[in-house]
């Protein structure tokens, strides 16, 4: 019968239309500005810089090694290294970025900067309402806008951030152990030096006794 296929199609359309009154799963549209889809954990948008503690300037993990600047495919990162150094998370003295700009109008969210960063300092953000009137200056993010706390990182990517924190805790423990070992070694060396000095002083005393002239200057 001619028209059978059309009727079959119309039945399918009607089933979908009426079904949306019965089953909420069929309503696939989300009324965007009022209602938002839940954030997927792996989602990525633009990079940001992680800092530890409360001071964005002091706790910034970035050491201005400029690897991400070199590896970025569209070359949207601009870094200027500082002249002086500040202590990093493990207490080691490091450089820090005097300038760190990301032009997010050029960035293509490929995540390669995150993969190459050896200090876990640059990570992907999930913010998305970023439209701006100023297409040049408004989309050029500076260090102050890019720096976000480790707590924020923990809320947007909990699994990944936990792994990073565990790694940092291990590093800090290692650094503390190193400091402790160094201190112990220093103490032992001092003790040894003291006993040596004592022994030496006894011998020198003997020497001085044997040789009445000189030796006191030693």
């Amino acid at each position, binding site marked *: 019968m001619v028209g*059978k*296929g059309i009727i079959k199609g119309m039945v399918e*359309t009607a089933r979908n239309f009426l079904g949306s009154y019965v089953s909420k799963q069929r309503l696939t549209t989300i009324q965007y500005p009022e209602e938002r889809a839940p954030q*997927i954990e*792996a989602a990525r948008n633009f990079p940001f810089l992680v800092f530890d503690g409360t001071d964005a300037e002091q706790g910034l993990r970035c050491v201005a090694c400029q690897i991400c600047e070199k590896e970025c*495919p569209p070359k949207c990162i601009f870094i200027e290294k500082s002249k002086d150094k500040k202590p990093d998370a493990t207490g080691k003295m490091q450089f820090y970025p005097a300038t760190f700009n990301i032009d997010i109008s050029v960035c*293509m*969210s*490929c*995540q390669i900067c995150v993969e190459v960063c050896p200090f876990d300092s640059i990570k992907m953000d999930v913010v998305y309402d970023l439209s701006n009137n100023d297409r040049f200056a408004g989309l050029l993010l500076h260090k102050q806008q890019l720096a976000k706390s480790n707590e924020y990182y923990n809320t947007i990517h909990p699994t990944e951030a936990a792994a990073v924190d565990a790694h940092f805790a291990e590093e800090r423990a290692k650094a503390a152990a190193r400091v402790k070992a160094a201190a112990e070694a220093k103490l032992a060396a001092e003790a040894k030096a003291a006993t040596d000095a004592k022994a030496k002083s006894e011998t020198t005393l003997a020497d001085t006794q044997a040789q009445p002239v000189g030796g006191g200057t030693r």
Partner: protein
Amino acid sequence: MSDATNLTAQIDINTIPALGKEQLLELAMGPQHPSTHGVFRMNVVLDGERVMKLKPVFGYLHRNHEKIAESETYLGSMPYTDRLDYICSITNNWAYAIAVEKLAGIEVPERAEYLRVITGELTRLQNHACLLGFLMQDMGASGTPLMYAFREREKIMDLFEGLTGARMMCNYLRFGGCRVDTPAGWMDAARKVVAEFPRFLDEYENLLVGNEILMDRTQEVGILSKELAINAGISGPMARASGVDYDIRKVDHYSIYDRFNFRIPLGERGDVYDRYMIRFLEMRESIKILEQAMRDIPDGPIVDPKTKIRGFRPKPGEAYGRIESPKGELGFYLVSDGALNPYRYRVRPPSLINLTVLEDLCIGQNVADVVVILGSIDIVLGEVDR
């Protein structure tokens, strides 16, 4: 552009029976025509409704992809390949990764191969679903079929977001494996999507396949003969719709496709209807592959630990890696001179080469059919123009 504007001058007057040359109408379809799937122009010469000559004009979306890749590191080109055929980014990554792995002699761990097959076949599902929707839109079935197809594509894109972080520009594969392993619960979600997908296919078949209007519009329209398909180097579903039994998954057995049990659907006539139906059948076969891959996927590492992310320099040489992308044979040809960036980088895009027969398919057809024929070729201008 001068020869493009002088199409009427090239036509032999004797081939036009009733009308003189002055009766012909020259028409530029595109580049802003909604049916051209992007910025693509067809300069057609019409005799009434009949197409006498057609000249495709492209390059509006040219972004210098190959030359940019020659100044990037090998890994730096990976996100750019996403932007070739932006509907199926993971298969683009895959073809490029295979080329580099051949060049550098990198082995891929078992689990990574399974992940590649799973994401690659999901990509095929979303590409074909999209194509069916767009083709219906081109025929004038405005809205409904496209929305049904996009609803399914949305589910697959959500899966991609959960795994790779991005919905379209996935940038997921790495040389010697994949970037991240599946998060907890992802595989179950993917199984659910795959299990529900046949229901969409049934629904779509009910909706349109038996439809008399669709049959009238597509059957015996834009016939591509088997000989022409072979001679013009057509690949993918378009060649198979003309009866050419050529699928690189079966020919090359690349990755782990020899482990799966699936069949290659073939068409008979090579018209738009066959090209339409072949995508349906391919989706059903893809679901079979997905079910087997999700059942058999082993645990283990997802990336070869020896491959470096930074300072990757393959030894001098050349390699051509190809896969069966949803649109056809997608190949990457690389020449290395031992530096950080490739000496030569060339893409063999399936869309562009399938598009070369457009004029042969369109001559003698009605102008409204040109839109349908173009839709059935399945082009993405990001890949045609690069």
